[in-house]
Protein backbone atom coordinates (compact mmCIF):
# COMPACT_ATOMS: atom_id res chain seq x y z
CA UNK A 1 0.00 0.00 0.00
CA UNK A 2 1.15 3.47 -0.88
CA UNK A 3 0.26 6.56 1.09
CA UNK A 4 0.33 9.96 -0.52
CA UNK A 5 -0.21 13.24 1.25
CA UNK A 6 -3.43 14.69 -0.23
CA UNK A 7 -4.60 18.24 0.28
CA UNK A 8 -6.02 19.45 3.62
CA UNK A 9 -3.88 16.97 5.45
CA UNK A 10 -5.85 14.00 4.18
CA UNK A 11 -4.09 10.81 3.19
CA UNK A 12 -4.73 9.26 -0.17
CA UNK A 13 -4.57 5.52 0.07
CA UNK A 14 -3.43 3.79 -3.05
CA UNK A 15 -3.70 0.05 -2.90
CA UNK A 16 -2.78 -2.40 -5.56
CA UNK A 17 -6.36 -3.56 -6.02
CA UNK A 18 -7.54 0.01 -6.44
CA UNK A 19 -5.00 0.68 -9.17
CA UNK A 20 -6.01 -2.56 -10.85
CA UNK A 21 -9.68 -1.60 -10.65
CA UNK A 22 -9.00 1.77 -12.28
CA UNK A 23 -6.96 0.15 -15.01
CA UNK A 24 -9.66 -2.40 -15.80
CA UNK A 25 -12.37 0.25 -15.87
CA UNK A 26 -10.17 2.52 -17.97
CA UNK A 27 -9.67 -0.25 -20.53
CA UNK A 28 -13.39 -1.01 -20.62
CA UNK A 29 -14.32 2.62 -20.95
CA UNK A 30 -11.76 3.26 -23.72
CA UNK A 31 -13.45 0.47 -25.60
CA UNK A 32 -16.98 1.74 -25.12
CA UNK A 33 -15.94 5.28 -26.00
CA UNK A 34 -14.58 4.16 -29.39
CA UNK A 35 -17.62 5.22 -31.41
CA UNK A 36 -17.54 8.70 -29.93
CA UNK A 37 -13.83 9.06 -30.67
CA UNK A 38 -14.39 7.77 -34.16
CA UNK A 39 -17.20 10.23 -34.72
CA UNK A 40 -15.05 13.19 -33.73
CA UNK A 41 -12.05 12.01 -35.74
CA UNK A 42 -14.08 11.36 -38.86
CA UNK A 43 -15.64 14.80 -38.83
CA UNK A 44 -12.18 16.34 -39.21
CA UNK A 45 -10.76 13.92 -41.77
CA UNK A 46 -9.85 15.22 -45.22
CA UNK A 47 -11.50 13.38 -48.09
CA UNK A 48 -8.54 11.14 -48.91
CA UNK A 49 -8.38 9.92 -45.32
CA UNK A 50 -12.11 9.15 -45.29
CA UNK A 51 -11.61 6.65 -48.08
CA UNK A 52 -8.20 5.34 -47.18
CA UNK A 53 -7.85 1.60 -47.34
CA UNK A 54 -7.34 -0.13 -44.94
CA UNK A 55 -9.61 2.20 -42.94
CA UNK A 56 -7.92 4.26 -40.29
CA UNK A 57 -9.36 5.16 -36.91
CA UNK A 58 -7.61 8.38 -36.03
CA UNK A 59 -7.23 11.49 -38.11
CA UNK A 60 -3.74 12.40 -39.32
CA UNK A 61 -4.25 15.78 -40.96
CA UNK A 62 -7.30 17.37 -39.37
CA UNK A 63 -9.24 19.84 -41.48
CA UNK A 64 -12.43 21.85 -41.14
CA UNK A 65 -13.21 21.54 -44.83
CA UNK A 66 -16.02 19.09 -44.07
CA UNK A 67 -17.87 21.78 -42.19
CA UNK A 68 -17.55 24.34 -44.97
CA UNK A 69 -18.71 21.63 -47.39
CA UNK A 70 -21.71 21.09 -45.19
CA UNK A 71 -22.59 24.77 -45.22
CA UNK A 72 -22.30 24.84 -49.02
CA UNK A 73 -24.50 21.80 -49.54
CA UNK A 74 -26.99 23.20 -47.06
CA UNK A 75 -27.16 26.37 -49.14
CA UNK A 76 -28.46 24.34 -52.07
CA UNK A 77 -31.49 23.23 -50.07
CA UNK A 78 -34.81 24.98 -50.78
CA UNK A 79 -35.71 25.42 -47.12
CA UNK A 80 -33.22 27.30 -44.95
CA UNK A 81 -31.30 25.04 -42.62
CA UNK A 82 -32.34 27.08 -39.61
CA UNK A 83 -35.90 25.92 -40.21
CA UNK A 84 -34.95 22.24 -39.78
CA UNK A 85 -32.99 23.11 -36.69
CA UNK A 86 -35.91 25.11 -35.32
CA UNK A 87 -38.31 22.21 -36.00
CA UNK A 88 -36.03 19.74 -34.27
CA UNK A 89 -35.54 21.92 -31.22
CA UNK A 90 -39.25 22.75 -30.85
CA UNK A 91 -40.39 19.16 -31.28
CA UNK A 92 -37.74 17.62 -29.04
CA UNK A 93 -38.06 20.16 -26.24
CA UNK A 94 -41.86 19.92 -26.12
CA UNK A 95 -41.71 16.13 -26.14
CA UNK A 96 -39.12 15.94 -23.37
CA UNK A 97 -40.92 18.43 -21.11
CA UNK A 98 -44.32 16.93 -21.94
CA UNK A 99 -43.32 13.35 -21.39
CA UNK A 100 -41.74 14.13 -18.03
CA UNK A 101 -44.96 15.86 -16.87
CA UNK A 102 -47.41 13.32 -18.29
CA UNK A 103 -45.45 10.21 -17.29
CA UNK A 104 -44.56 11.38 -13.80
CA UNK A 105 -48.16 12.32 -13.02
CA UNK A 106 -49.35 8.99 -14.36
CA UNK A 107 -46.71 7.04 -12.50
CA UNK A 108 -47.42 8.95 -9.28
CA UNK A 109 -51.10 8.10 -9.49
CA UNK A 110 -50.39 4.43 -10.25
CA UNK A 111 -48.05 4.07 -7.29
CA UNK A 112 -49.52 6.32 -4.61
CA UNK A 113 -53.26 6.63 -5.33
CA UNK A 114 -53.75 3.19 -6.88
CA UNK A 115 -57.15 4.05 -8.39
CA UNK A 116 -59.35 1.13 -9.48
CA UNK A 117 -58.21 0.05 -12.96
CA UNK A 118 -54.63 1.04 -12.27
CA UNK A 119 -53.40 -2.54 -12.39
CA UNK A 120 -55.09 -3.08 -15.73
CA UNK A 121 -53.45 0.05 -17.06
CA UNK A 122 -50.07 -1.14 -15.86
CA UNK A 123 -50.58 -4.42 -17.67
CA UNK A 124 -51.40 -2.49 -20.80
CA UNK A 125 -48.20 -0.50 -20.35
CA UNK A 126 -46.22 -3.74 -20.17
CA UNK A 127 -47.94 -5.06 -23.28
CA UNK A 128 -47.16 -1.86 -25.17
CA UNK A 129 -43.57 -2.06 -23.99
CA UNK A 130 -43.18 -5.55 -25.34
CA UNK A 131 -45.10 -5.28 -28.55
CA UNK A 132 -42.87 -4.89 -31.58
CA UNK A 133 -43.00 -1.32 -32.88
CA UNK A 134 -42.66 -2.54 -36.46
CA UNK A 135 -46.21 -3.82 -36.71
CA UNK A 136 -47.79 -0.90 -34.88
CA UNK A 137 -46.33 1.62 -37.33
CA UNK A 138 -49.09 1.22 -39.90
CA UNK A 139 -51.94 1.43 -37.35
CA UNK A 140 -50.23 4.46 -35.77
CA UNK A 141 -50.18 6.16 -39.13
CA UNK A 142 -53.91 5.46 -39.54
CA UNK A 143 -54.63 7.04 -36.15
CA UNK A 144 -52.59 10.16 -36.88
CA UNK A 145 -54.21 10.43 -40.29
CA UNK A 146 -57.73 10.12 -38.83
CA UNK A 147 -56.98 12.96 -36.42
CA UNK A 148 -55.89 15.16 -39.37
CA UNK A 149 -52.50 15.69 -37.82
CA UNK A 150 -50.39 14.88 -40.88
CA UNK A 151 -47.90 17.69 -41.61
CA UNK A 152 -48.33 19.33 -38.24
CA UNK A 153 -46.15 19.54 -35.16
CA UNK A 154 -48.90 17.56 -33.46
CA UNK A 155 -48.04 14.48 -35.51
CA UNK A 156 -44.42 14.69 -34.42
CA UNK A 157 -45.16 15.46 -30.77
CA UNK A 158 -48.42 13.87 -29.56
CA UNK A 159 -47.67 10.18 -30.30
CA UNK A 160 -44.34 10.45 -28.45
CA UNK A 161 -45.63 11.87 -25.17
CA UNK A 162 -47.33 9.01 -23.34
CA UNK A 163 -44.64 6.40 -23.88
CA UNK A 164 -45.05 3.16 -21.95
CA UNK A 165 -41.34 2.92 -21.29
CA UNK A 166 -41.15 6.36 -19.66
CA UNK A 167 -44.08 5.76 -17.35
CA UNK A 168 -42.68 2.38 -16.33
CA UNK A 169 -39.29 3.93 -15.57
CA UNK A 170 -40.73 6.65 -13.34
CA UNK A 171 -43.14 4.24 -11.66
CA UNK A 172 -40.20 2.12 -10.50
CA UNK A 173 -38.54 5.14 -8.90
CA UNK A 174 -41.80 6.40 -7.36
CA UNK A 175 -42.10 3.14 -5.47
CA UNK A 176 -39.07 4.09 -3.42
CA UNK A 177 -40.57 7.35 -2.23
CA UNK A 178 -41.73 6.80 1.36
CA UNK A 179 -45.52 6.90 1.82
CA UNK A 180 -44.98 8.27 5.31
CA UNK A 181 -43.69 11.58 3.95
CA UNK A 182 -46.80 12.03 1.81
CA UNK A 183 -49.04 11.15 4.74
CA UNK A 184 -47.25 13.64 6.95
CA UNK A 185 -47.64 16.39 4.37
CA UNK A 186 -51.35 15.62 4.05
CA UNK A 187 -51.79 15.89 7.78
CA UNK A 188 -50.00 19.24 7.65
CA UNK A 189 -52.65 20.33 5.16
CA UNK A 190 -50.69 20.35 1.92
CA UNK A 191 -52.75 19.94 -1.25
CA UNK A 192 -52.19 16.92 -3.49
CA UNK A 193 -50.65 18.91 -6.33
CA UNK A 194 -48.38 20.73 -3.95
CA UNK A 195 -47.16 17.47 -2.46
CA UNK A 196 -46.47 16.18 -5.93
CA UNK A 197 -44.71 19.31 -7.20
CA UNK A 198 -42.77 20.37 -4.15
CA UNK A 199 -41.94 17.08 -2.46
CA UNK A 200 -42.10 14.12 -4.80
CA UNK A 201 -40.73 15.67 -7.99
CA UNK A 202 -37.61 17.23 -6.44
CA UNK A 203 -36.82 13.91 -4.80
CA UNK A 204 -37.13 12.17 -8.14
CA UNK A 205 -34.42 14.18 -9.85
CA UNK A 206 -32.15 11.22 -10.69
CA UNK A 207 -35.10 9.48 -12.35
CA UNK A 208 -36.36 12.47 -14.31
CA UNK A 209 -32.81 13.33 -15.39
CA UNK A 210 -32.41 9.78 -16.69
CA UNK A 211 -35.71 10.10 -18.51
CA UNK A 212 -34.65 13.42 -20.04
CA UNK A 213 -31.51 11.79 -21.42
CA UNK A 214 -33.41 8.83 -22.90
CA UNK A 215 -36.21 10.93 -24.28
CA UNK A 216 -33.94 13.58 -25.75
CA UNK A 217 -31.63 11.06 -27.44
CA UNK A 218 -34.51 9.09 -28.93
CA UNK A 219 -36.50 12.02 -30.21
CA UNK A 220 -33.59 14.14 -31.37
CA UNK A 221 -32.46 11.26 -33.56
CA UNK A 222 -35.97 10.11 -34.46
CA UNK A 223 -36.01 9.53 -38.16
CA UNK A 224 -39.20 7.55 -38.38
CA UNK A 225 -41.86 10.06 -37.22
CA UNK A 226 -40.97 12.83 -39.67
CA UNK A 227 -40.51 10.26 -42.41
CA UNK A 228 -44.09 9.01 -42.29
CA UNK A 229 -46.06 11.82 -40.64
CA UNK A 230 -44.62 14.73 -42.60
CA UNK A 231 -44.53 15.35 -46.33
CA UNK A 232 -43.80 19.06 -46.61
CA UNK A 233 -40.14 20.13 -46.63
CA UNK A 234 -40.75 22.91 -44.15
CA UNK A 235 -41.93 20.48 -41.46
CA UNK A 236 -38.97 18.14 -41.62
CA UNK A 237 -36.60 17.79 -38.70
CA UNK A 238 -32.82 17.54 -38.73
CA UNK A 239 -32.28 13.76 -39.09
CA UNK A 240 -34.50 13.54 -42.14
CA UNK A 241 -33.24 16.80 -43.64
CA UNK A 242 -29.62 15.74 -43.26
CA UNK A 243 -30.37 12.47 -44.95
CA UNK A 244 -31.93 14.30 -47.90
CA UNK A 245 -29.00 16.68 -48.14
CA UNK A 246 -26.43 13.90 -48.04
CA UNK A 247 -28.10 12.25 -51.00
CA UNK A 248 -30.64 9.77 -49.67
CA UNK A 249 -30.41 6.72 -47.47
CA UNK A 250 -28.46 4.56 -49.89
CA UNK A 251 -26.32 7.27 -51.39
CA UNK A 252 -23.23 7.80 -49.34
CA UNK A 253 -22.23 9.82 -52.37
CA UNK A 254 -18.47 10.27 -52.44
CA UNK A 255 -18.53 14.03 -52.85
CA UNK A 256 -20.73 14.55 -49.80
CA UNK A 257 -19.08 12.01 -47.49
CA UNK A 258 -17.17 14.73 -45.68
CA UNK A 259 -20.27 16.84 -45.24
CA UNK A 260 -22.12 13.83 -43.86
CA UNK A 261 -19.39 13.16 -41.33
CA UNK A 262 -19.52 16.79 -40.21
CA UNK A 263 -23.31 16.69 -40.02
CA UNK A 264 -23.27 13.50 -37.95
CA UNK A 265 -20.82 15.11 -35.59
CA UNK A 266 -22.98 18.22 -35.22
CA UNK A 267 -26.13 16.12 -34.75
CA UNK A 268 -24.52 14.23 -31.88
CA UNK A 269 -23.23 17.34 -30.07
CA UNK A 270 -26.55 18.42 -28.48
CA UNK A 271 -27.08 14.90 -27.14
CA UNK A 272 -23.66 14.92 -25.52
CA UNK A 273 -24.32 18.36 -24.05
CA UNK A 274 -27.70 17.30 -22.62
CA UNK A 275 -26.15 14.15 -21.24
CA UNK A 276 -23.33 16.05 -19.55
CA UNK A 277 -25.77 18.49 -17.96
CA UNK A 278 -28.22 15.82 -16.81
CA UNK A 279 -25.50 13.50 -15.60
CA UNK A 280 -24.90 15.63 -12.54
CA UNK A 281 -28.56 15.25 -11.60
CA UNK A 282 -28.57 11.51 -12.24
CA UNK A 283 -25.87 11.17 -9.63
CA UNK A 284 -27.38 13.58 -7.14
CA UNK A 285 -27.91 12.09 -3.72
CA UNK A 286 -31.52 11.96 -2.66
CA UNK A 287 -33.17 14.65 -0.61
CA UNK A 288 -34.92 12.16 1.65
CA UNK A 289 -31.78 10.16 2.28
CA UNK A 290 -31.86 10.85 5.98
CA UNK A 291 -35.39 9.58 6.55
CA UNK A 292 -35.67 6.36 8.46
CA UNK A 293 -38.62 4.16 7.63
Amino acid sequence: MLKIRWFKGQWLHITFSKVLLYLVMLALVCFTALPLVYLVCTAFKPLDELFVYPPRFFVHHPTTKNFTDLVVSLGSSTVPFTRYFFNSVVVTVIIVVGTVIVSSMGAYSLVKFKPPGGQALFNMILIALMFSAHVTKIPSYMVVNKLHLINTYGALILPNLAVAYNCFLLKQFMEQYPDELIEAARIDGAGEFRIFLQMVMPALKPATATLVVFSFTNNWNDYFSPLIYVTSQAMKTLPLALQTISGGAAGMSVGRAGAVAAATFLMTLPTVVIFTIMQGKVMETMVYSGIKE
Partner: protein
Amino acid sequence: MSSSLAKQIKREQLRQLTAGERFTRFWKRNWIGYAFLAPFVILFTIFTVAPVVTAIGLSFTDYNMMQTPHFVGLNNYKLLFLDDEVFTIALSNTVKFAVIVGPVGYLLSFLAAWVINQLQARRAFTLAFYAPSITSGIAMSVVWMVIFSSDRYGYLNNFLLNMGLIDEPILWNTDPNYIMKVVVFIQLWMSMGTGFLVFLAGLQNVPRSYYEAAAIDGVKNKFQELIYVTLPVMKPQLLFGAINSIVGSFGVFEIAVSVAGMPSPNYAAHTIVAHLYDYAFIRFQMGYASAVAVVLFIITFVLGRIVMKLLSSKGE
Protein backbone atom coordinates in the same frame (compact mmCIF):
# COMPACT_ATOMS: atom_id res chain seq x y z
CA MET B 1 -64.07 -10.44 14.46
CA SER B 2 -64.92 -6.83 15.07
CA SER B 3 -63.20 -5.68 11.91
CA SER B 4 -65.07 -8.19 9.78
CA LEU B 5 -68.29 -7.08 11.44
CA ALA B 6 -67.44 -3.46 10.64
CA LYS B 7 -66.80 -4.45 7.07
CA GLN B 8 -70.15 -6.18 6.88
CA ILE B 9 -71.93 -3.15 8.23
CA LYS B 10 -70.13 -0.96 5.75
CA ARG B 11 -71.09 -3.25 2.90
CA GLU B 12 -74.69 -3.16 4.10
CA GLN B 13 -74.60 0.60 4.16
CA LEU B 14 -73.15 0.66 0.68
CA ARG B 15 -75.91 -1.58 -0.60
CA GLN B 16 -78.55 0.81 0.68
CA LEU B 17 -77.06 3.67 -1.29
CA THR B 18 -78.48 4.51 -4.68
CA ALA B 19 -76.32 4.14 -7.75
CA GLY B 20 -75.84 7.89 -7.86
CA GLU B 21 -74.70 8.10 -4.27
CA ARG B 22 -72.37 5.17 -4.74
CA PHE B 23 -70.83 6.94 -7.70
CA THR B 24 -70.34 10.16 -5.73
CA ARG B 25 -68.60 8.17 -3.01
CA PHE B 26 -66.37 6.40 -5.52
CA TRP B 27 -65.62 9.69 -7.25
CA LYS B 28 -64.77 11.46 -4.02
CA ARG B 29 -62.28 8.81 -3.10
CA ASN B 30 -60.63 8.43 -6.50
CA TRP B 31 -60.98 11.65 -8.46
CA ILE B 32 -57.53 12.91 -7.59
CA GLY B 33 -55.96 9.64 -8.72
CA TYR B 34 -57.79 9.79 -12.02
CA ALA B 35 -56.96 13.46 -12.44
CA PHE B 36 -53.24 12.67 -12.24
CA LEU B 37 -53.66 9.73 -14.57
CA ALA B 38 -55.90 11.38 -17.15
CA PRO B 39 -53.34 13.07 -19.47
CA PHE B 40 -51.31 9.90 -19.73
CA VAL B 41 -54.30 7.64 -20.21
CA ILE B 42 -55.85 9.75 -22.95
CA LEU B 43 -52.68 10.07 -25.01
CA PHE B 44 -51.66 6.49 -24.32
CA THR B 45 -55.02 5.10 -25.41
CA ILE B 46 -55.14 7.05 -28.65
CA PHE B 47 -51.55 6.70 -29.79
CA THR B 48 -50.39 3.43 -28.27
CA VAL B 49 -53.23 1.19 -27.16
CA ALA B 50 -55.26 1.68 -30.32
CA PRO B 51 -52.39 0.74 -32.67
CA VAL B 52 -51.40 -2.26 -30.54
CA VAL B 53 -54.95 -3.56 -30.39
CA THR B 54 -55.31 -3.04 -34.13
CA ALA B 55 -52.12 -4.98 -34.76
CA ILE B 56 -53.30 -7.84 -32.56
CA GLY B 57 -56.56 -7.85 -34.50
CA LEU B 58 -54.68 -7.88 -37.80
CA SER B 59 -52.86 -11.05 -36.77
CA PHE B 60 -56.12 -12.95 -37.37
CA THR B 61 -56.48 -11.56 -40.87
CA ASP B 62 -54.94 -11.67 -44.27
CA TYR B 63 -53.88 -8.11 -44.99
CA ASN B 64 -51.62 -6.87 -47.77
CA MET B 65 -51.99 -3.15 -47.03
CA MET B 66 -53.91 -2.59 -50.30
CA GLN B 67 -57.16 -4.47 -49.89
CA THR B 68 -59.25 -4.50 -46.75
CA PRO B 69 -58.11 -7.22 -44.35
CA HIS B 70 -60.22 -10.36 -44.28
CA PHE B 71 -60.58 -12.66 -41.32
CA VAL B 72 -58.72 -15.97 -41.49
CA GLY B 73 -58.95 -17.09 -37.86
CA LEU B 74 -55.87 -18.81 -36.51
CA ASN B 75 -54.53 -19.53 -39.97
CA ASN B 76 -51.49 -17.24 -39.64
CA TYR B 77 -50.47 -18.94 -36.41
CA LYS B 78 -50.90 -22.41 -37.90
CA LEU B 79 -48.72 -21.47 -40.84
CA LEU B 80 -46.16 -19.96 -38.53
CA PHE B 81 -45.65 -23.02 -36.38
CA LEU B 82 -46.38 -25.84 -38.81
CA ASP B 83 -45.11 -24.69 -42.20
CA ASP B 84 -42.63 -21.89 -41.70
CA GLU B 85 -39.21 -23.48 -41.27
CA VAL B 86 -37.44 -20.14 -41.41
CA PHE B 87 -39.46 -19.00 -38.41
CA THR B 88 -38.21 -22.00 -36.45
CA ILE B 89 -34.64 -20.96 -37.27
CA ALA B 90 -35.41 -17.39 -36.30
CA LEU B 91 -36.96 -18.52 -33.03
CA SER B 92 -34.01 -20.69 -32.06
CA ASN B 93 -31.49 -18.00 -33.06
CA THR B 94 -33.31 -15.40 -31.02
CA VAL B 95 -33.56 -17.62 -27.95
CA LYS B 96 -29.88 -18.60 -28.14
CA PHE B 97 -28.98 -14.97 -28.53
CA ALA B 98 -31.23 -13.69 -25.74
CA VAL B 99 -30.02 -16.32 -23.28
CA ILE B 100 -26.50 -14.93 -23.58
CA VAL B 101 -26.98 -11.22 -24.19
CA GLY B 102 -29.86 -10.69 -21.72
CA PRO B 103 -28.24 -11.92 -18.50
CA VAL B 104 -24.65 -11.00 -19.38
CA GLY B 105 -25.56 -7.48 -20.48
CA TYR B 106 -27.71 -7.07 -17.39
CA LEU B 107 -24.97 -8.15 -14.99
CA LEU B 108 -22.25 -6.18 -16.75
CA SER B 109 -24.25 -2.97 -16.82
CA PHE B 110 -25.06 -3.29 -13.14
CA LEU B 111 -21.46 -4.03 -12.24
CA ALA B 112 -20.27 -1.09 -14.31
CA ALA B 113 -22.76 1.25 -12.65
CA TRP B 114 -21.84 -0.03 -9.19
CA VAL B 115 -18.11 0.29 -9.74
CA ILE B 116 -18.17 3.61 -11.60
CA ASN B 117 -20.38 5.10 -8.91
CA GLN B 118 -17.52 4.62 -6.44
CA LEU B 119 -14.69 5.91 -8.61
CA GLN B 120 -13.08 9.31 -8.78
CA ALA B 121 -13.84 11.16 -12.02
CA ARG B 122 -17.04 9.17 -12.34
CA ARG B 123 -18.53 11.76 -14.68
CA ALA B 124 -15.91 11.10 -17.33
CA PHE B 125 -16.28 7.34 -16.84
CA THR B 126 -20.06 7.62 -17.14
CA LEU B 127 -19.93 9.60 -20.36
CA ALA B 128 -17.47 7.17 -21.91
CA PHE B 129 -19.52 4.16 -20.86
CA TYR B 130 -22.74 5.67 -22.15
CA ALA B 131 -21.17 6.78 -25.44
CA PRO B 132 -22.41 3.83 -27.55
CA SER B 133 -25.99 4.72 -26.63
CA ILE B 134 -25.51 8.34 -27.62
CA THR B 135 -23.98 7.55 -30.97
CA SER B 136 -26.10 4.48 -31.53
CA GLY B 137 -26.50 3.36 -35.07
CA ILE B 138 -24.68 6.22 -36.71
CA ALA B 139 -21.09 5.68 -35.77
CA MET B 140 -21.34 2.18 -34.37
CA SER B 141 -21.77 0.41 -37.66
CA VAL B 142 -18.61 2.02 -39.02
CA VAL B 143 -16.61 1.29 -35.90
CA TRP B 144 -17.24 -2.41 -35.80
CA MET B 145 -16.87 -2.62 -39.57
CA VAL B 146 -13.33 -1.41 -39.09
CA ILE B 147 -12.77 -3.97 -36.35
CA PHE B 148 -14.55 -6.99 -37.79
CA SER B 149 -13.73 -6.45 -41.43
CA SER B 150 -13.34 -9.87 -43.05
CA ASP B 151 -10.10 -9.11 -44.89
CA ARG B 152 -6.66 -9.09 -43.38
CA TYR B 153 -6.83 -5.34 -42.76
CA GLY B 154 -9.69 -5.60 -40.30
CA TYR B 155 -8.29 -4.68 -36.88
CA LEU B 156 -9.17 -7.97 -35.25
CA ASN B 157 -7.97 -10.14 -38.13
CA ASN B 158 -4.84 -8.08 -38.40
CA PHE B 159 -4.17 -8.49 -34.69
CA LEU B 160 -4.79 -12.24 -34.71
CA LEU B 161 -2.63 -12.72 -37.81
CA ASN B 162 0.23 -10.76 -36.27
CA MET B 163 -0.02 -12.77 -33.07
CA GLY B 164 0.19 -15.90 -35.17
CA LEU B 165 -3.08 -17.23 -33.78
CA ILE B 166 -4.66 -17.66 -37.22
CA ASP B 167 -3.21 -18.17 -40.71
CA GLU B 168 -6.18 -17.00 -42.74
CA PRO B 169 -8.38 -13.97 -42.07
CA ILE B 170 -11.66 -15.03 -40.50
CA LEU B 171 -14.81 -14.16 -42.41
CA TRP B 172 -16.51 -12.59 -39.40
CA ASN B 173 -19.66 -11.43 -41.14
CA THR B 174 -20.16 -14.10 -43.78
CA ASP B 175 -19.18 -17.36 -42.08
CA PRO B 176 -22.32 -18.73 -40.36
CA ASN B 177 -20.12 -20.08 -37.55
CA TYR B 178 -19.03 -16.62 -36.54
CA ILE B 179 -21.95 -14.36 -37.42
CA MET B 180 -23.95 -14.96 -34.26
CA LYS B 181 -20.89 -14.55 -32.04
CA VAL B 182 -20.08 -11.22 -33.64
CA VAL B 183 -23.69 -10.08 -33.28
CA VAL B 184 -23.71 -11.10 -29.62
CA PHE B 185 -20.53 -9.16 -28.99
CA ILE B 186 -21.65 -5.97 -30.71
CA GLN B 187 -25.11 -6.06 -29.15
CA LEU B 188 -23.58 -6.46 -25.69
CA TRP B 189 -21.30 -3.54 -26.35
CA MET B 190 -24.10 -1.32 -27.57
CA SER B 191 -27.03 -2.16 -25.38
CA MET B 192 -25.67 -1.65 -21.89
CA GLY B 193 -26.26 2.11 -21.72
CA THR B 194 -29.93 2.17 -20.74
CA GLY B 195 -29.65 -0.28 -17.87
CA PHE B 196 -26.42 1.33 -16.78
CA LEU B 197 -27.92 4.80 -16.46
CA VAL B 198 -31.01 3.56 -14.62
CA PHE B 199 -28.86 1.58 -12.17
CA LEU B 200 -26.64 4.60 -11.64
CA ALA B 201 -29.70 6.71 -10.78
CA GLY B 202 -31.01 3.90 -8.58
CA LEU B 203 -27.77 3.75 -6.61
CA GLN B 204 -28.33 7.35 -5.49
CA ASN B 205 -31.68 6.24 -4.07
CA VAL B 206 -30.08 4.07 -1.41
CA PRO B 207 -30.11 6.15 1.78
CA ARG B 208 -26.64 6.64 3.32
CA SER B 209 -28.01 5.85 6.75
CA TYR B 210 -28.67 2.28 5.60
CA TYR B 211 -24.99 1.75 5.03
CA GLU B 212 -24.15 3.21 8.40
CA ALA B 213 -26.71 1.00 10.08
CA ALA B 214 -25.38 -2.01 8.19
CA ALA B 215 -21.82 -1.24 9.30
CA ILE B 216 -22.99 -1.31 12.91
CA ASP B 217 -24.76 -4.60 12.25
CA GLY B 218 -21.47 -6.14 11.17
CA VAL B 219 -21.35 -5.68 7.41
CA LYS B 220 -17.65 -5.61 6.69
CA ASN B 221 -16.88 -5.10 3.03
CA LYS B 222 -18.28 -3.66 -0.17
CA PHE B 223 -19.64 -6.98 -1.38
CA GLN B 224 -21.63 -7.61 1.76
CA GLU B 225 -22.93 -4.05 1.49
CA LEU B 226 -23.98 -4.78 -2.08
CA ILE B 227 -25.86 -7.95 -1.19
CA TYR B 228 -27.50 -6.91 2.08
CA VAL B 229 -28.17 -3.22 1.50
CA THR B 230 -27.87 -2.06 -2.09
CA LEU B 231 -29.62 -4.85 -3.97
CA PRO B 232 -32.74 -5.07 -1.77
CA VAL B 233 -33.30 -1.31 -1.91
CA MET B 234 -32.73 -1.21 -5.65
CA LYS B 235 -35.35 -3.80 -6.54
CA PRO B 236 -37.51 -1.40 -8.59
CA GLN B 237 -34.55 -0.43 -10.77
CA LEU B 238 -33.38 -4.02 -11.03
CA LEU B 239 -36.83 -4.96 -12.29
CA PHE B 240 -36.83 -2.16 -14.82
CA GLY B 241 -33.38 -3.20 -16.03
CA ALA B 242 -34.47 -6.82 -16.31
CA ILE B 243 -37.58 -6.04 -18.35
CA ASN B 244 -35.50 -3.71 -20.47
CA SER B 245 -32.93 -6.37 -21.25
CA ILE B 246 -35.59 -9.01 -21.97
CA VAL B 247 -37.29 -6.71 -24.46
CA GLY B 248 -33.96 -5.62 -25.92
CA SER B 249 -32.38 -9.04 -26.29
CA PHE B 250 -35.48 -10.65 -27.81
CA GLY B 251 -35.92 -7.67 -30.10
CA VAL B 252 -32.46 -7.95 -31.67
CA PHE B 253 -32.63 -7.00 -35.31
CA GLU B 254 -30.79 -3.91 -36.57
CA ILE B 255 -27.35 -5.08 -35.54
CA ALA B 256 -27.90 -8.58 -36.88
CA VAL B 257 -28.93 -7.12 -40.22
CA SER B 258 -26.07 -4.66 -40.44
CA VAL B 259 -23.54 -7.38 -39.59
CA ALA B 260 -24.82 -10.14 -41.82
CA GLY B 261 -27.28 -8.52 -44.20
CA MET B 262 -30.78 -9.73 -44.87
CA PRO B 263 -31.31 -12.55 -45.48
CA SER B 264 -28.10 -13.60 -43.76
CA PRO B 265 -26.01 -16.54 -45.04
CA ASN B 266 -27.85 -19.75 -44.09
CA TYR B 267 -30.18 -17.56 -42.01
CA ALA B 268 -27.43 -17.60 -39.40
CA ALA B 269 -28.44 -14.19 -38.05
CA HIS B 270 -32.16 -14.42 -38.82
CA THR B 271 -34.09 -13.30 -35.73
CA ILE B 272 -37.79 -13.10 -34.90
CA VAL B 273 -37.91 -9.38 -35.55
CA ALA B 274 -35.99 -9.84 -38.80
CA HIS B 275 -38.67 -12.35 -39.83
CA LEU B 276 -41.37 -9.91 -38.84
CA TYR B 277 -39.71 -7.08 -40.75
CA ASP B 278 -39.34 -9.31 -43.79
CA TYR B 279 -43.06 -10.04 -43.92
CA ALA B 280 -44.20 -6.53 -42.98
CA PHE B 281 -42.06 -4.34 -45.21
CA ILE B 282 -40.68 -6.61 -47.92
CA ARG B 283 -43.57 -8.98 -48.63
CA PHE B 284 -46.32 -6.66 -47.33
CA GLN B 285 -48.12 -9.43 -45.44
CA MET B 286 -49.13 -7.35 -42.47
CA GLY B 287 -51.43 -10.01 -40.99
CA TYR B 288 -48.70 -12.61 -40.89
CA ALA B 289 -46.16 -10.10 -39.54
CA SER B 290 -48.60 -9.18 -36.76
CA ALA B 291 -48.93 -12.85 -35.84
CA VAL B 292 -45.12 -13.02 -35.49
CA ALA B 293 -45.28 -9.92 -33.28
CA VAL B 294 -47.93 -11.53 -31.08
CA VAL B 295 -45.80 -14.66 -30.62
CA LEU B 296 -42.77 -12.54 -29.73
CA PHE B 297 -44.88 -10.52 -27.34
CA ILE B 298 -46.18 -13.65 -25.59
CA ILE B 299 -42.64 -14.94 -25.04
CA THR B 300 -41.41 -11.66 -23.58
CA PHE B 301 -44.55 -11.17 -21.52
CA VAL B 302 -44.28 -14.59 -19.86
CA LEU B 303 -40.60 -13.99 -19.11
CA GLY B 304 -41.40 -10.50 -17.87
CA ARG B 305 -44.04 -11.86 -15.50
CA ILE B 306 -41.58 -14.42 -14.10
CA VAL B 307 -38.99 -11.70 -13.53
CA MET B 308 -41.61 -9.53 -11.84
CA LYS B 309 -42.48 -12.37 -9.50
CA LEU B 310 -38.81 -12.75 -8.62
CA LEU B 311 -38.09 -9.06 -8.15
CA SER B 312 -41.43 -7.90 -6.83
CA SER B 313 -40.79 -4.94 -4.56
CA LYS B 314 -43.84 -5.80 -2.48
CA GLY B 315 -42.57 -9.19 -1.41
CA GLU B 316 -40.40 -7.95 1.43
